[in-house]
């Protein structure tokens, strides 16, 4: 792809200022993330070391083991040192047996010192290293398959959703969607999975408005898409969700099972799911480090800002969130090509110039993040049940996508807010996309918004409002002396939600790291650098 021209004539000094403010806002939060751990980070580490499965009540063994260690020695030293010390002491021959014994209280954990501590750490590094190597192998396999089958021939990549609740129903639907033209299949999760503090086990056949994310479901779907990729001569990507209380674990499973994209937003869980801010930022950093290593493209959730607030008034909150998501992602080692920063077509179609504003906002995102595969999301809020009007709106959405060189296009359905799309709705939606792309994607060549015209002016206005908001965020303070971004989240700067750092779900799963905290996964991920440019994609 050629780089889009600088069409908006943004002031480079303002752009630089926006980025430096985002960096400033993120820095203290990164420090917090690096000085805490969570139950989910520790469970993810054990999953990398190969601990899988669950007891007869479907409580995962990683939950049992982390709970047992936490009760006896605490989590502040990391779970792996006491766990591998127990293995070296011969308490059990392997992790699964150890977890089983721990679940029935038949093993005691301690914090080893001196040479015993070093031995436990060495053993842990070796154990966790196996999972990281699995992730590396999955990445290499993806590279090989993309080379063999090829990437989609055109951009944007077409993103379609399946969500039956039953993985064995999802599979044929996903394969059919790929045959109809989908480049990316997203399996929507069961409602409320983000609030479960464990990852369900095994192949699942029932869910609420979606299918549970489990390691086995990941594996089954990826294998099915490998078959269809081969048939179609194009690598079909698989997407799932790393949000909620189990971000780190889901990220580890996704990396090992070769998912290709993951929804992963820096603040979504806090704002829209009332998950504790510290928990979220700690979990998020680990999960993003894993995504970076796995070569996974993240999709961020800026569309959510526009469905809860007015898409014109809140346009700048999307830009702010994109800048923060970019900053947190870069800090965690993700590269530009992995940043599917989100934005959405959600302006009320009744207001004058709504299309011009959509175009201005989309161009702004395109120009601020020229090397990121932006994720362009269809109208939902103003889809009324009038499917005919909805179809037209989706056409205009596609047109903005075509005119602004989006990387990932979530296909809009005229049945949005009505029913789960029919087979025919999906077919019509894809016809809509194809028609617009064929007819108008060349417009990027001809269309340049006139200097200081409506579009340029609107884009500059949104950018400057974003800078103002970032300014307010970095100078925010609260009585507790929290990081400014946390203070801003606590006093309701984002949307209508006030989320104090001391509230929300999952706070009890957060521990301050002790000086001797050791986590071989984090050590390896911190030391990791992406392969040389061009080597992988």
């Amino acid at each position, binding site marked *: 792809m050629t780089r889009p021209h600088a069409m908006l004539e943004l002031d480079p000094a303002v752009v630089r200022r926006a980025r430096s403010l985002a960096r400033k806002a993120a820095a203290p939060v990164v420090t917090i993330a690096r000085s805490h751990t969570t139950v989910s980070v520790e469970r993810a580490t054990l999953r990398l070391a190969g601990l899988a499965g669950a007891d007869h009540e479907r409580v995962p063994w990683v939950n049992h083991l982390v709970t047992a260690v936490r009760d006896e020695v605490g989590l502040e030293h990391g779970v792996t040192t006491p766990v591998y010390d127990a293995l070296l002491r011969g308490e059990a021959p392997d992790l699964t047996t150890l977890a089983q014994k721990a679940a029935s209280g038949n093993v005691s954990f301690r914090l080893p010192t001196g040479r015993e501590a070093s031995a436990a750490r060495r053993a842990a590094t070796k154990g966790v290293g196996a999972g990281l190597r699995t992730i590396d192998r999955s990445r290499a396999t993806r590279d090989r398959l993309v080379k063999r089958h090829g990437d989609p021939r055109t951009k944007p990549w077409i993103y379609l959703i399946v969500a039956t609740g039953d993985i064995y129903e999802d599979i044929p639907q996903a394969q*059919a969607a790929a*045959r*109809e033209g989908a480049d990316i299949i997203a399996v929507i999760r069961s*409602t*409320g999975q983000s*609030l479960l503090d464990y990852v369900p086990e095994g192949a699942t056949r029932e869910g*609420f408005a979606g299918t549970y994310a489990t390691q086995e479901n990941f594996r089954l779907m990826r294998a099915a898409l490998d078959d269809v990729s081969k048939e179609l001569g194009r690598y079909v990507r698989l997407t799932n969700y790393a949000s909620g209380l189990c971000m780190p674990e889901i990220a580890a499973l996704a990396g090992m099972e070769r998912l290709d994209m993951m929804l992963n937003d820096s603040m979504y869980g806090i*704002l*829209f*799911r*009332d998950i504790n801010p510290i928990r979220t930022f700690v979990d998020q950093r680990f999960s993003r480090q894993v995504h970076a290593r796995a070569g996974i493209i993240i999709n961020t959730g800026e569309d*959510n800002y526009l*469905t*809860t607030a007015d898409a014109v008034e809140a346009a700048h909150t999307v830009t702010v969130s994109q800048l923060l998501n970019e900053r947190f992602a870069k800090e965690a080692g993700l590269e530009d090509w992995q940043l599917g920063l989100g934005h959405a077509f959600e302006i009320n179609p009744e207001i004058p110039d709504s299309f011009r504003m959509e175009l201005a906002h989309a161009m702004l995102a395109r120009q601020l993040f020229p090397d990121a595969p932006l994720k362009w999301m269809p109208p*939902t*809020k103003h889809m009324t049940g009038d499917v005919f009007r909805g179809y037209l709106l989706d056409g205009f959405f596609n047109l903005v996508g075509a005119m602004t060189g989006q990387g990932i296009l979530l296909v809009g359905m005229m049945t*949005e*807010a009505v029913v789960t799309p*029919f*087979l*025919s709705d999906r*077919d*019509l939606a894809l016809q809509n996309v194809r028609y617009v792309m064929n007819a108008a994607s060349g417009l990027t060549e001809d269309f340049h918004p006139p200097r200081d015209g409506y579009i340029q002016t609107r884009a500059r206005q949104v950018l400057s409002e974003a800078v103002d908001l970032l300014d307010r965020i970095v100078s925010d303070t609260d009585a507790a002396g929290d990081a400014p971004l946390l203070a801003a989240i606590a006093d309701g700067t984002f*949307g*209508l*939600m006030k989320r104090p750092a001391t509230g929300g*779900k999952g706070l009890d799963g957060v521990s301050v790291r002790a000086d001797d905290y050791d986590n071989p996964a984090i050590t390896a991920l911190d030391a990791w650098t992406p392969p040389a440019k061009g080597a992988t994609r």
Partner: protein
Amino acid sequence: MSASKQQPGPATGSATGSPSTQGPIIRPYGDTTGDGMVQMSFTLPLPHDKKAEGAALQLARKMGLDPALLVHAKAMGPDFTFFVVYGSSTHLVNLDDVHVVEREYPLLSAKDANLTIKKQLRRKLVVVGACIGTDAHTVGIDAILNIKGFAGEKGLEYYREIRVVNLGAQVLVPELVARARAEKADAVLVSQVVTQKDAHIHNTTQMSAAFREAYPAGQVPILIAGGPRFEDGSESALGVDRIFGRGTTPGEVASYLVHEIGLRKGKKP
């Protein structure tokens, strides 16, 4: 439509056919009174060929379209065909036989709900929510309370004039009562998904009894139970004011709360 077409007697009794003068018998309106024209689209699990088109027309006729006009047929992959059919419906509707069950309260937009609360209470409406007993399924309560919401509707947190206190899962009844008192709750929402050994019924009756014990008569907050397995109309047996079942949206709950608050306000001297 052509004049030769069969006309249904009563519906076209008036020559002008303007809606205000028609009788109780109704047919769809395409471009002429009484033409009965409808348009529909559907998919058949058949490859696209003459036989599939015939099948589509037969289906349309069985659905009461006569004549039926197949205007579009398109293969969707090797196994499915999409059809668009126009036709005149032979069915008549007698308005006198149309009975509708009205919800006893109007469905309000978030904005209207906020306005009404502001007007009636002159303060925020306080809602305390929890999953009680051993139930850890917060799916339902979160769908109603979390700003993320459900079915495209934002949860109660989104309402500016509603203050939501979500206590989460496995909350004990005494704890819920104490918190409701401390927060001066106007309404208490409990969610019950697990139904083993009728746990949802025991938990809910225990909850409502505890509230009646803890509050003076007439001052108990609005008690709402939500879950997929509650029986319709079992409110009084459970001691709650309202039951909401599967598929309830936050807007319905908010509208009900506004309605009920209004009633209670009206009752008080």
